[in-house]
């Protein structure tokens, strides 16, 4: 596997992590305001 391939895979992982954390951050802010759990119910 070339270095470029590895970097592209890492980029995809970083995007996926950013996507998940972005939704979890909104969920947690809403939970702080309204009440709720970080996990369970909606997938994200």
């Amino acid at each position, binding site marked *: 596997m070339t270095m470029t391939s590895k970097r592209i895979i890492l980029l995809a992982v970083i995007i996926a992590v950013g996507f998940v954390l*972005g939704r979890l*951050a*909104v969920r947690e802010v*809403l939970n702080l305001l*309204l009440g*709720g759990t970080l996990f369970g119910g909606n997938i994200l």
Partner: protein
Amino acid sequence: MKTLKWGLLYTAAFLAAFVGSALLKLNSDPTHGKYNTRWDETIGKAYTDLPYGEGAANKFDLYVPADKSQDAYGLVVYLHAGGFTSGDKAGDAEMLEWLCSKGYVAAGINYTLFTEENPDASVYSQSEEIKAAMPYVVAAAEKLGYKLDRMAIAGGSAGGCLALIYAYRDADTSPLPVRMVFEAVGPGSFHVEDWGIFGLDQSPEAAAGLFSVMSGQALTPEDITSGAYLDAVKPISADRWVTKDTVPSVLCYGAHDKMQPFAASKPLVAALEKNGVDYRYFVAEHSGHGLQNDNKVYMEYLDAVVEYLDKYMKD
């Protein structure tokens, strides 16, 4: 140099994904459009800010279907949220349009909010305003050519509380037979032991303060400890008006609600169960006041609303 470029790309990609997904979540519709409607003159027409009293807030919006072929129509009143201190009927336009698209005359009613300008407003005074508004709503619909012969009442949060009070306490004096109520996260009972999220179970002073504002009666800490407050809050406590004749009810609550205690829904449900009322009670186990983490439960609640409207509001 190449490593630096990739490092910047990783950072930018992370931030873009983080912000983008956050914005998507904030703007997502949990019903995926199932309970929205296209709104134009082929569906219905809205008449806004019709008066029902002397107060600045004594206004209602009326949504009437374009189809005028029916002999009589059902009225569905939807009362707005806002913690009894804020909010406006205009915020429920989508809900009212959707109800109208189902063939009902729909009404959103404003009520005098508890604010610095209106320190005497209370849940009780608001419930009395809703009661006073109903004959005006019926008259306005009839003036537009829509004869009404039955009604449902509904709301969210503060509006849900007021809807329950009207359906359970005031149905006997309603100008239209009340057939059902549906609401989400509205306080349905006022027992200090259930209001622990605000510390009312530990502080008679705090309980006296909050329940005084809500009931519109001056309560003391002694009233709380002696239980005398229960008479004062009865007019705003839906659970205390439940009988075997109480109308069918569809309710939804968040188990982790920080705005109104989930525990306060329990006496209401117990009263409905004890009296054999036809009711549905949905619990969003992972959500708070916004029912925000349980889209599936929220959809089930709305599906039940449709089921009950079809069952009790059709001819």
